[in-house]
């Protein structure tokens, strides 16, 4: 997030405010003028300086495009990796690559339609999946991503689980534009399918103890992608993306906590892990951005 963009976000939060550059203004209007479902304004944020950074529909589309570019490159690099040439799931990789490239193409066109010039489609290899952020002197965080099918599938599962969760988080900022929201929701569903299938592949090909949906019964990935803890701690700490999936509370109809302790009794009794499994959780913007930054 560059400074200009940050300033614009703050000005959007404080409308009517100092003039923002016209292209961004125009884009925001066309993307539904969405200031996070009315949330920031409703929360009574005082001055922009005190307000938290605001998510807009434009920010959401740009974040999702970055995500899709990264995923497309991930599969492109996988298809080129010698260690995966004989992998039994190569046809899947081609399909997954196509889906992500298609999603990226749609998001690029969405930006163009809104008067924003999108970043050009990256040339592979563009992202560094070793975790070194393109700097050979940094430590390698993920040494086995492209050296064999087990390490690859473990990273693929995490990236696709994260993708489904990032889409969920960003969908809330696109609510002002139903056509775009419909597209984003239907891409989210496809990301969830990817994630579930990669979990099936891990279970059946790698013998990994994972279900096709995130579960506390899953063996934790190792190494796990780390994102900032929420709530933030002092000093800052990190956590796996699956910490967010462990949530067991849901809110319905305004602010009513669903009382599962009384609902799930008698013939409605469920297994210990079922409550967290039954809901895929969103990954907030801060964690989504941190995750994307790991890979460049």
């Amino acid at each position, binding site marked *: 997030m560059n400074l200009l963009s940050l300033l614009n976000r703050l000005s959007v939060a404080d409308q009517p405010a100092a003039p923002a550059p016209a292209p961004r203004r125009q884009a925001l209007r066309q993307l539904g003028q969405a200031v996070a479902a009315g949330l920031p304004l409703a929360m*009574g944020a005082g001055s922009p300086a005190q307000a938290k950074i605001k998510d807009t529909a434009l920010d959401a589309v740009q974040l999702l495009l970055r995500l899709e570019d990264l995923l497309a490159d991930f599969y492109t690099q996988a298809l080129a990796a010698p260690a995966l040439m004989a992998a039994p799931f190569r046809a899947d990789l081609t399909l997954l690559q196509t889906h992500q490239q298609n999603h990226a193409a749609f998001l690029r066109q969405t930006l163009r339609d809104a008067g924003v010039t999108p970043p050009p489609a990256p040339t592979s290899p563009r992202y560094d999946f070793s975790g070194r952020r393109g700097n050979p002197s940094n430590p390698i965080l993920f040494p086995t991503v492209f050296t064999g099918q087990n390490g690859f599938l473990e990273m693929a599962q995490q990236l696709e689980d994260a993708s489904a969760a990032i889409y969920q988080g960003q969908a809330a900022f696109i609510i002002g534009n139903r056509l775009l929201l419909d597209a984003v929701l239907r891409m989210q569903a496809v990301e*969830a399918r990817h994630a579930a*299938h990669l979990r*099936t592949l891990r279970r059946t090909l790698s013998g990994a103890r994972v279900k096709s*949906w995130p579960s506390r019964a899953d063996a934790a990935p190792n190494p796990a992608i780390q994102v900032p803890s929420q709530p933030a701690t002092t000093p800052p700490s990190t956590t796996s993306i699956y910490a967010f999936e462990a949530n067991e509370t849901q809110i319905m*109809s305004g*602010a009513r906590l669903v009382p599962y302790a009384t609902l799930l009794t008698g013939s409605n009794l469920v297994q210990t892990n079922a409550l967290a499994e*039954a809901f895929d959780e969103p990954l907030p913007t801060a964690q989504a951005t941190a995750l994307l930054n790991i890979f460049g």
Partner: protein
Amino acid sequence: MTFSSSSDKPTAGPSWGRRAFLQATGATAASAALLLAGCSSDDPTPEPVNTTLVSLGSNDVGLLNYVYLLKQLQAAFYQKVLDNPPTDLQAGDLAFLNDLRDHEVIHRETLRFALGNQAITTIPIDFTTVTLTTRAGVLATAKRLEDLGSAGIAGILRLVLDQSHFATLLKISSVENRHSTFIRDVLSPAAGTFATDVVVNTPPLLSVAATQTPAQVTANLAPFFLPLSIFTDSLPSA
């Protein structure tokens, strides 16, 4: 479109409900003749219909009742299978059937709670048109229900107004897609089948989830609800 925040309006909960279409209240089962009596006068004389209509209601209430109906069916299906499992189940089948049953029960109860006294009644499910005595029959029905659940929720999710309803239904939708994918993987591990007819191109949209309207979904599922018939015309559509 207005959207209430979950944090700033503690009174938002009841208000969406009170505004709801009256026919959504309680277990509305009106006779077809009564509903058809409201049709415009230039309609020809309606054919006599003997089925009993269940009206889901309008606005968010209607959409929640629609998903609640799907969840009633899915939960009842897995429960019935578990109560009397096919003898040819394979190792591991019962574990995932129990997981799926639990998830659907949780979804159903979440919606029942949110709807309160505007929830439709518990619909008796007729399973006589599907085979539940063989593994193949169970998996085929599971695929049908999870595919339809995924496409059905994808068809209405953008129309949900209340922020908490939207967020929770999106969480449920995501898991529904995982269920559908999982069953497809169990049925056919071959490459690509997890995303064949459920992922479509409808330019400018590419590689997005297929959707079905409430009318399409309930038409497909109609045999499960007999002798009741589901009235979806009052649901929002745009």
